[in-house]
């Protein structure tokens, strides 16, 4: 078989998997919500409500597709399409597994392996805001426009901190390729152990980039009715929601690739040895790695949901302050400390940054007057 067709099949499988995962994320989200709120969640369609996503898709397709009279028709249609397109593009460089051997060819389980992999994800994420902005503007609705503007400013703000937190990982690896980043984490030396601060910053920014709670201000229903998709109905709304779940899955994949070793797992060399060196053994080892990667990614999808049903939404000024005044300086500090660590060849050195920050935070909390402590900082000091 030609190497081109193997690659095409891999790309199609990745494409299909991200759609299926996004589809069942909607089901899982409602199940998790149900569990956390002590109710069953969807349980009518199929076993445990497993057919619910299909029923939802059917409902979405057959609902009336409404376009407001004063809306800009073409951009109104383009909005959800752009959101979907950018969501699907970003998984192109994520290595889902090691290589598979077919005949004499060794093919990587990945869309494209480029030496700028992680920047590609970053570039597509920065384009992702257009879907929301175009849709929100074209709706010709004040609430939609406000939602779109919120989404845009939030995404731009958090992109900076995200990029800065990535730089520390890139510095430690010396490569922009996601596969190289994963390969350097081989043998249990996951980046999480060396970049704890970077991981927290990256994860927070991933939440903000996906517009997930606690940063879901673009669609904050208490203030903006529905945000940028107020005017949308039928499958166009479905595309927006679906794009969010795909983004969630892709960012989970990226987090597990960057910080959790990707398809690496403990004792993988011994497993590979036991399976043998021939093509079948290698392919089975790759399949196990693929499964491990998927488990990690799905855990983070669950983490997104866990946070959604645990934390309340931020206020808009809190969101901006967190992004600009906390995360960006922290990310810069992380870069500096990682750089010092690299200079003296101490890999775990960025834990020093964590210690410094925790120390500073404790001192600040202790110095504050008692009335101003706690979550309700906005409350007047008595």
């Amino acid at each position: 078989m030609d190497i081109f067709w193997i690659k095409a099949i891999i790309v199609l499988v990745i494409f299909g998997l991200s759609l299926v995962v996004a589809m069942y994320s909607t089901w899982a989200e409602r199940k998790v919500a149900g569990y956390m709120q002590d109710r069953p969640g969807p349980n009518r369609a199929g076993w445990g409500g497993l057919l619910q996503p299909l029923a939802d898709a059917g409902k979405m397709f057959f609902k009336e597709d409404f376009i407001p009279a004063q809306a800009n028709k073409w951009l109104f249609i383009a909005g959800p399409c752009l959101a979907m397109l950018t969501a699907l593009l970003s998984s192109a460089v994520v290595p889902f597994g090691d290589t598979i051997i077919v005949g004499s060819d060794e093919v990587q389980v990945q869309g494209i392996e480029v030496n700028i992999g992680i920047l590609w994800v970053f570039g597509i994420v920065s384009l992702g805001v257009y879907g929301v902005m175009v849709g929100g503007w074209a709706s010709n609705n004040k609430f939609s426009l406000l939602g779109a503007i919120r989404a845009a400013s939030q995404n731009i703000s958090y992109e900076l901190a995200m990029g800065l937190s990535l730089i520390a990982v890139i510095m430690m690896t010396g490569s922009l390729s996601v596969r190289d980043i994963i390969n350097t984490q081989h043998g249990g030396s996951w980046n999480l152990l060396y970049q704890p601060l970077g991981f927290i910053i990256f994860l927070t920014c991933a939440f903000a980039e996906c517009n997930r709670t606690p940063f879901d201000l673009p669609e904050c229903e208490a203030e903006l009715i529905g945000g940028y998709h107020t005017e949308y109905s039928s499958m166009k709304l479905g595309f927006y929601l679906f794009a969010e779940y795909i983004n969630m899955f892709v960012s989970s994949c990226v987090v597990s690739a960057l910080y959790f070793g990707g398809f690496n797992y403990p004792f993988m060399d011994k497993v590979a040895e036991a399976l043998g060196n021939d093509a079948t053994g290698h392919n089975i080892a790759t399949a196990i790695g693929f499964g491990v990667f998927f488990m990690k990614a799905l855990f983070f999808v669950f983490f997104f949901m866990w946070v959604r049903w645990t934390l309340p939404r931020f206020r808009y000024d809190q969101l901006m302050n967190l992004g600009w005044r906390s995360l960006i300086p922290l990310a810069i500090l992380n870069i500096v400390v990682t750089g010092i660590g690299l200079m003296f060849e101490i890999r775990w050195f960025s834990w020093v940054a964590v210690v410094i920050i925790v120390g500073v935070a404790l001192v600040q909390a202790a110095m504050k007057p008692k009335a101003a402590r706690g979550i309700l900082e906005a409350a007047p000091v008595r």
Partner: protein
Amino acid sequence: MPITADITWYILTALTLISALAVILVRNPMYSVLSLVLTFFLLSCHYFLLNAQFLGVVNMIVYAGAIMVLFLFVVMFLNLREYREETKNNLTKIGAFVMGLAILGAIIASIRRLQYPMPSNDQFNVTTGYVETLGDLLFRDYLLPFELVTVLFFIAMVGAIIIGKREKGERHF
């Protein structure tokens, strides 16, 4: 493979030219901004085709991703119906035409004087566009200019913040 690359190049160039023309030919500023975004994206594709992946992706992040979002911001806040008639003034049309011609003449004149080294197969190096090569150039051969440019950017950033943060009644610098 060379034939498919050729065809890709022709299609890409045609699309780039169409979207670049659309930037100046469409009436609605919103469409204009969006076609500019498309133009930047297609230019990035040109970079990818030339194996300059880093340049392509940075072009995408900085121009298509960050700067054009700000353009879109401004256009979103404009009341489009109000501003439409202003640009139809004859004087502005003539002025724009003359300026455009002058810039076109200047660009053509300067390009005619340039002697581009023509690429040849034996000089071709796959790694020319790679980020490693770029890093070597920037941080070894051109370290001082690079650092000076960063200082320049920093000054520009501070200046923008000072101008942007100044409110009525505050003292001028």
